[in-house]
């Protein structure tokens, strides 16, 4: 196996452009179809209007062991609305027709496997996806996804790193990863938290030295102060999932559903999170 160099693509370039302007990139996450596809379109437009730089989408899955209760509930709502992988891909193509923001996916392997791994990457790239993180595919099992991504232009595999990742493991990640490095701010599952873990700075310095891709920090990033802390620790950008999805649950579902309020809540949250990245990017070695 010859290691291939990390793939720079539209997504990498977008993050680098933010950094060149002195800002961090902001990548919000939603589950497609939560609570239905029409609402997801409304949410995406509000995310973009609020200043999101990159969009991250999840495909709903029945058994998501890497996710906390907020995203599990979103998965169930989307499944109840009949959201299938084919409809998710169609949704992405529709988003792509309106916005040129890079799109990353975070999903579970069985959906990729049942679609056919090669066919999935081809269809995802055709729909406008730039990067794919399969939550339950570590380096050991990444061969088929890596080979599938290599057959299609403009799409790459994203990998996770944490404080538990050894330098040897990071070197292996560097050999196959593209797009960006998904740095988890704490070892755990998705969800909101009070503070960003101490020690993140040393961790990010290690990642930057080992993997020549931008590093986005995720897991528990739910307020502007978390964004500021992650940027001060040396992040190139941040990812926020549960905090966005919770707003969808609050304003887009059931008796509390009010699309204007939802649109405002998403827009305001995104603008606040993006504002916290502005001027906050630290070049390496400072």
């Amino acid at each position, binding site marked *: 196996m010859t290691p291939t160099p990390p793939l720079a693509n539209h997504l990498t370039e977008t993050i680098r452009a933010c950094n060149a302007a002195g800002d961090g990139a902001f990548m919000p996450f939603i589950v497609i179809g939560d609570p239905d596809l029409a609402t997801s379109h409304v949410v995406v437009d509000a995310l973009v209007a609020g200043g999101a730089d990159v969009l991250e989408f999840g495909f709903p*899955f*029945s*058994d*998501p*062991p*890497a*996710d*906390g*209760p907020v995203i*599990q509930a979103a998965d*169930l709502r989307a*499944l109840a609305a009949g959201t*299938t*992988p*084919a409809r998710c891909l169609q949704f992405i193509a529709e988003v792509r027709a309106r916005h040129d923001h890079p799109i990353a996916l975070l999903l*579970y*392997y*069985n*959906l990729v*496997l*049942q*679609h056919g791994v090669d066919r999935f990457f081809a269809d995802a790239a055709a729909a406008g996806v730039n990067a794919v993180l399969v*939550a*339950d*595919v*570590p*380096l*050991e*099992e990444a061969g088929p996804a890596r080979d599938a991504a290599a057959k299609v232009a403009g799409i790459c595999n994203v*990998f*996770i*790193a*944490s404080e*538990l*990742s*050894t330098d040897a*493991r990071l070197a292996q990640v560097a050999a196959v990863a593209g797009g960006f490095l998904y740095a*988890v701010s704490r*070892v*755990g*599952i998705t969800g909101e938290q009070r503070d960003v873990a101490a020690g993140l700075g040393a961790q990010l310095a290690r990642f930057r030295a080992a993997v020549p891709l931008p590093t986005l920090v995720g897991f528990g990033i739910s307020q502007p102060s978390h964004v500021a802390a992650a940027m001060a620790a040396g992040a190139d950008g941040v990812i926020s999932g549960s905090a966005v999805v919770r707003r969808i649950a609050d304003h887009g579902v059931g008796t509390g559903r009010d699309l204007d309020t939802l649109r405002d809540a998403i827009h305001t949250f995104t603008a606040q999170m993006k504002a916290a990245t502005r001027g906050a990017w630290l070049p390496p070695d400072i």
Partner: protein
Amino acid sequence: MQLDGKFGPYGGCFVSELLIPALEEMEAAWLDARQDPVFQARLTDLLQRWAGRPTPLYRAPALSAAVGCEVYLKREDLLHGGAHKTNNTIGQALLAKRMGRTHLIAETGAGQHGVATAMAGALLGLKVKVFMGAKDVARQQPNVRRMGLFGAEVVSVHSGSRSLKDAINETLRYWTETVAESFYVFGTVAGPHPYPSIVKDFQRIIGEEIKRDLLAETQRLPTAVMACVGGGSNAMGAFAEFIGDSEVQLIGVEPGGRGLDSGEHGATLIAGRPGCVHGSISYLLQDEVGQVQEAHSISAGLDYPGVGPEHAWLKDQGRARYVSATDAEALDAFTWLCRNEGILPALESSHAVAAALASAGQWQRDDVLVINLSGRGDKDLAHAIAALDARGAGGAQ
């Protein structure tokens, strides 16, 4: 990882990157412990003097007459804790100690694995937290209370379908959050590598004893070994020693629930297709796009939409074959064994007895059929009696 954990195209290690360091550490500890005579001596001593091994291999006269060949029961129902699960939990708890972990966590379906983990924790001074689907908590109350008596905390899981698969998801989540101090004692030969191999290692003593005792008594190998299959640990334990003996038939019995055509069953190998869930690729009950479906069985311990990856490979190679028994057939076999052999089997194990009874007439008189009677039925009394009463009220036979 030192090994890839693959069984043909099945198995592997499909988990979050965050769990890889823990699984690597576990694999190293296991590979080291298998070679360590001190570890093996401690395990053997506990299995014998604390848990009651070896369990008897009993020639069942009424069952032999009914099936039409020599039928032996491997009496795992007599093991401490009431099922084969203890073989595995003692082994994994000793591994946890070896790795310096202070907490055991586990999923449980029927509660047998939870009870066996709770007992092992009490024995070895480890704190235990057991995740159990809310549906199973309701139908397996005696085991919930037993876990409490052994000092374990039982967490009722309300997510998803509130049964075993969701208990596994929740245990994986909790493990990811607490991976530095906790050891996940996995209950069956499924999950990510190295679990299918570790659990098989700790359960293979079942087949080793069957072979040793049968050779001593009859100077021959069994014609067939039969066992129920949910995740597949008792079957793998009974099969492992015989996989290389090609003349020995290996027969797994899956839960047919309300019938394979009803869609309400847990016959993963018969009616599922390959997919990836809970850390490995194996047969899976799933819809056309890959969403995992709920299994159904009268026995909580077989109520699982996945199955161990080595069973998938044994099936594809034709080395083992898999049949099913419905809820009704299992309930019939449950009462039959009580009345005719004076043995109260677990509803899980009753599926294997049902398949044996259904195979009457297919054997030569001197064939030897060994059924792994994986557990006893005390835990099932309330549930089984309610089902029998409902049947009586419904006017069925």
